[in-house]
């Protein structure tokens, strides 16, 4: 197990190294001069060539690319992650300030997706082609097609229209004011949770349908077990593995989707910072945030792999 863990960690690290290289190269082929983005075209024209060179050197943009890459890696190792072009803030502080809200949204949305998706999947599988099954399947097909950010905008509009309610727009952490914080995260979490829930419901239904036909489920019923026990003790544990895998893959949907959904709700999370940084062409902030999102994505999927051994005792890692 320890050996497997080590191998998996090394594999993940090398993947992330590749990710960092791609992010770095992609962001350095920017055609526009970052100074134009910073000062505007007129402001840029007013700068003397010497000033331009001075500012570029100050920002560390006139060094050769390998030097810039190594400096980035050093900034990561030191934990500061570099400074924003525009505001001069440390990127690490930005993440610590904005990150917790986005993390809350992500975690709550995964919980919601399981709380909604799994029961729907179970009902659908045990009563196939019933009314509730058909309603559930129609809903899940529908939710796969509705863009989360649009649903979010509609919710914001509806809340404003019917209840004259507007969610707070400032950064409030859970430990400062739980109630305000909850109002901030509940909308995005719900929208993302419903989107994932549609996938979870679909997957758990089809996995359960396969398991239900197994002999041991028939045996469990034949010995007179209650239906609820058959589901909870015998069918579900064996159908769960692919659903957990899917939930890990859906992390990509949550991370990417949260950027748009935060924008729709006007929640000041990390996704908003990414959008602002992209529009301002703040390369240092963008490269760190893109890397961070990928780190989380890779980490979650490694964790999912490791959870197999716990969910299915037949699996051993060596």
């Amino acid at each position, binding site marked *: 197990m320890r050996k497997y863990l080590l191998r998996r960690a090394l594999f993940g690290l*090398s*993947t*992330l190294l*590749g*990710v960092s290289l*791609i*992010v770095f190269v*992609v*962001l350095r*082929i*920017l*055609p*526009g001069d970052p100074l134009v983005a910073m000062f505007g075209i007129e402001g840029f024209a007013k700068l003397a060539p010497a000033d331009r060179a001075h500012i570029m050197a100050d920002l560390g943009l006139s060094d050769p690319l390998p030097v810039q890459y190594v400096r980035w890696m050093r900034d990561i190792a030191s934990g500061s992650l570099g400074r924003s072009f525009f505001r001069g803030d440390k990127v690490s502080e930005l993440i610590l300030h904005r990150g917790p809200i986005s993390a809350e949204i992500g975690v709550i949305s995964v919980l919601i997706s399981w709380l909604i998706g799994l029961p729907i999947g179970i009902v659908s599988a045990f009563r196939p082609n019933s009314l509730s099954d058909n309603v559930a399947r129609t809903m899940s*097909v*529908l939710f*796969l*097609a*509705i*863009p989360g*950010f*649009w649903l979010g*905008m*509609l919710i*914001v*509009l509806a809340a*404003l*229209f019917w209840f004259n309610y507007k969610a707070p727009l400032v950064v409030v952490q859970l430990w400062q004011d739980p109630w305000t914080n909850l109002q901030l995260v509940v909308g995005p979490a719900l929208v993302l949770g419903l989107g994932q829930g549609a996938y979870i419901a679909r997957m758990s239904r089809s996995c359960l349908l396969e398991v239900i*036909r197994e002999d041991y489920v028939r045996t469990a019923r034949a010995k007179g077990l209650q239906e609820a026990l058959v589901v909870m003790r015998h069918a579900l544990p064996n159908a769960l593995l692919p659903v957990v895998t899917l939930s890990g893959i859906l*992390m*990509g*949907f949550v*991370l*990417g*989707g949260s*950027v*748009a959904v935060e*924008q*729709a709700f006007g929640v000041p999370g990390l996704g908003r910072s*990414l*959008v602002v940084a*992209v*529009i301002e*062409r703040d390369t240092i902030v*963008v490269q760190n945030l*893109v890397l961070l*999102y*990928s780190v989380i*994505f*890779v980490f979650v999927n490694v964790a999912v792999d490791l959870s197999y051994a716990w969910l299915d005792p037949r699996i051993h890692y060596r």
Partner: protein
Amino acid sequence: MKNGLGVGAMEVARGADLPQRSVARELAAFTRRNPLAAAGGLVGFLIVVMALTAPLIAPSDPLKADFRRMAKPPDATSFFGTDQVGRDTLSRVIYGARSSLVVAFASVLLGTTVGSLWGVASGYLGGRFDLVSQRITEVLQSFPDLILAMAISMAIGTGMPAVIIAIAVTRIPFGNRVIRSVALTVRELSYVEAARAAGSSQPRVMFHHVLPQCVAPYLVLATAHLGVAIIIEAALGFLGVGIPPPTPTWGNMLADSLTSLVPRWWLVFFPGLAITVTVLAFNLFGDGVRDTLDPRLAPAFLRMLTGGRRA
């Protein structure tokens, strides 16, 4: 990997058994088998027609501002209302279909094709090339789709080609993975071995014998990803890194609606509805195409595998 069970063998058998049927009869059979998918295909087709004939059916110019009719709710003159500068929302939604569809079709075609060709090569050639390809795919898949698309779109500038490339890159790993697994199975079939034994060159075996077997899964993949591509395009537009205004796209119309203090409901509702209907249509159609072309996923085939029990 799903058990390949010789996709090749299945295809060959089907081709030999079935007499050639006309397109109309083929369509009729498809509709009978998958009424929902056919409905999705019909709606998708109508949306394509709407995009093509936009200048003929749009009630007014999507770019023409009318300062006497600013931010009007839907009424008899403009069915979907007008925006902050008096442009007709219905016309903008109709024209918006153009950018969405062009981007979706082009990016899926580009991404899936590049991914598939790469997948054929890496599945067939194997060895070190395959190993390196798999690692690169792994890295590409470690980005959340939308975030990778945002970064690429930011790097190569806004505009339609940039958006197409950005979305296409996120589709490459899917084509690569799926087609590679098909190529791995097909490579072992005896007719490929026969071709090799007859002295065909590597590229010839790859393009003439392995590649044709990948067409069905390729079509399945391409149709399955159209919906996702439309959602990513809309999201990029919404986040301000898609096709820039004044060109109307469903995404930048939604972004536009946020500029007023209290968003007008019709400016939010209609563009989003257009996205949802389009994605729904393409998804339903894609499911039908998958059931038809991929015998491994078709109900009849599943029944055969499970020994006659209902799938």
